[in-house]
């Protein structure tokens, strides 16, 4: 497909000092507004289809419009990119999303607060426990209940292990996208060990519905300390192997350094959070800056990059695994005994054995699992630092047992906005590295 007339061919675009936003191709570059200079290709399907009707075989000076995805091995699921190309150079691009949209926020309006966890956990399927955590925290804010200390520590333990498994998945896919295929096998191999522990605790490898309003679904199994210690012992030396395999390796550095650069100001303006923001040099981590759970009681470092390129984002995630393991080993020592869920009878179902001997227990059990528990009217927003950035849940309750509105502020959805800016003036081959370094989870993007 070639473009003639509609898209003016652009020169290499100078950085705009005034706005900090990269300047895009535009005619009369001195008098164009920020909108026209954008890296985003704002073109509808209809317009693209019209251009598609033009004769093929573009000349040397013509721009080409190319679709990448939705079923492309390097687009992490079903992300589609509309690319405006000059030769192999990407000028403007547009992420086209919605292929996994199943209306999960609408579904959430028909599920009780107890069932809601099963819904949100499927959004960011690489780090399901964070979805459950944010949803539970928002619900607990509305309920105004406190969670026992042990439950909070269990949540932290599980979430940090989930961060490890999610970043290991990133290591695997990032390696594969760049041709380091053995890395893919290693990443999946280590992740599987973490998932095996999750299965032991929650019964499932993914989509756990383990963190629930009021606590967690079950206590940690006997021998969990040994399991977790073994995990740490297994993964830590493997991370050093990744260092040997990738970090210092010239080909790896060549592919990632200086590719997909974004400044801190740009990242903030575009709403980016997580490793993208930290990679650009901004030390911002909700665990440290807005401590939730007991993150103010553990010792860890916020990993920050300097160049804001793909290499920094890779290195940040690799070192965040180390920090998470550091937190996990502190949790092993800090874990108190006690309840794993609140004893508030209106929120927590009674133990199975009590149902046989107590009428009240039977009634509570029946009410919680049929009608659900009622949540006072109001609105609440709870945010956690997921492996991809700020994951927030905005809940509106009208006093019934079903949320009136469930909104999930998905980090991948917002981070995807940086993609056109990262890809601008780069090569298509670098585009693959860039998509990978943004680490979008399409289930969360589309919801």
């Amino acid at each position: 497909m070639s473009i003639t007339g509609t898209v003016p061919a652009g020169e290499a675009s100078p950085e705009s000092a005034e706005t900090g936003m990269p300047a895009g191709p535009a005619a009369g570059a001195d008098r164009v507004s920020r909108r026209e200079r954008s890296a985003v290709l704002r073109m509808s399907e209809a317009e693209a289809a019209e251009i598609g009707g033009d004769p093929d075989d573009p000349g040397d000076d013509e721009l080409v419009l190319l679709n990448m995805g939705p079923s492309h091995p390097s687009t992490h699921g079903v992300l589609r990119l509309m690319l405006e190309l000059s030769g192999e150079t990407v000028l403007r691009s547009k992420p086209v999303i919605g292929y996994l949209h199943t209306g999960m926020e609408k579904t959430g309006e028909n599920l009780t607060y107890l069932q809601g966890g099963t819904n949100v956990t499927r959004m960011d399927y690489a780090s399901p426990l964070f979805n459950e955590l944010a949803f539970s925290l928002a619900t607990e804010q509305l309920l105004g209940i406190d969670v026992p200390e042990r439950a909070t520590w269990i949540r932290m333990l599980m979430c940090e292990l989930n961060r490890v498994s999610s970043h290991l998945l990133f290591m695997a896919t990032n390696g594969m996208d760049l041709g380091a295929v053995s890395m893919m096998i290693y990443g999946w191999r280590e992740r599987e060990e973490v998932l095996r522990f999750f299965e032991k605790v929650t019964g499932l490898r993914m989509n756990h519905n383990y963190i629930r309003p009021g606590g967690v679904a079950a206590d940690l199994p006997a021998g969990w300390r040994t399991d977790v210690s073994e995990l740490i012992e297994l993964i830590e030396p493997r991370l050093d192997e990744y260092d040997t395999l990738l970090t210092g390796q010239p080909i790896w550095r060549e592919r990632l350094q200086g590719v997909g650069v974004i400044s801190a100001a740009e990242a903030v303006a575009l709403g980016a959070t997580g490793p993208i923001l930290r990679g650009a040099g901004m030390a911002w981590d909700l665990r440290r800056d807005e401590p939730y759970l007991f993150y103010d009681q553990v010792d860890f470092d916020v990993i920050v990059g300097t160049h804001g390129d793909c290499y920094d984002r890779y290195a940040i995630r690799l070192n965040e695994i180390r920090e998470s393991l550091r937190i996990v080993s502190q949790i092993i020592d800090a874990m108190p005994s006690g309840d794993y869920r609140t004893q508030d009878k209106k929120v927590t179902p009674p133990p199975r054995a009590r149902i046989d001997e107590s009428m009240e227990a039977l009634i509570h059990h029946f009410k919680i699992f049929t009608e659900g528990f009622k949540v006072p009217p109001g609105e609440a927003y709870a945010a956690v630092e997921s492996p991809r950035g700020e994951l927030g849940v905005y809940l509106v309750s009208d006093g019934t047992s079903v949320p009136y509105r469930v909104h999930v502020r998905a980090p991948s959805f917002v981070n995807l906005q940086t993609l056109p800016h990262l890809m601008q003036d780069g090569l298509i081959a670098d585009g693959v590295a860039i998509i990978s370094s943004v680490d979008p989870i399409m289930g969360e993007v589309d919801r």
Partner: protein
Amino acid sequence: MAERYGAPVGADRPSRGQAVIHPSPSRWLDVAAAARADGFDQLIDLTAVDYLTYGADRSLPEGVQPERFEVVAGLMSHERLERLRMRVQVPADDPALPTLFDLWPGSESLEREVYDMFGIAFEGHPDLSRILMPEDWPGHPLRKDYDSGRIPVQFKAASNVR
């Protein structure tokens, strides 16, 4: 009545530790610009709620006229470690607001999503189009009068699409 950036402050207490202000639709952009100038450098979240069938008291501050739609924007000040939530009432007969794109370019996708799901138009938005639903989709799914159970699965090859 307490005000901030010229907008009423929510009820008598912050919503679970986070400050809430209620700008009027006509002052939406001015209040947002004042907040932006005051150090709220990131637009974290922007969404909407359709209060069509809401059965409880909405506890809006005095002088704020409740409307069917409410657009909720979450702001973050990295310098002061502070969050601010802006809730604006949007009437059902004219669901439109000025865009925040010129203050925070990150509002682009979020406003497109609200437009897609609620049919609230953002005037001046550079690319106000559907983002999650197909471009020719009728209706706005997250509205409360949009039935969730009636849309058949769409197959492109089928002759009786919708």
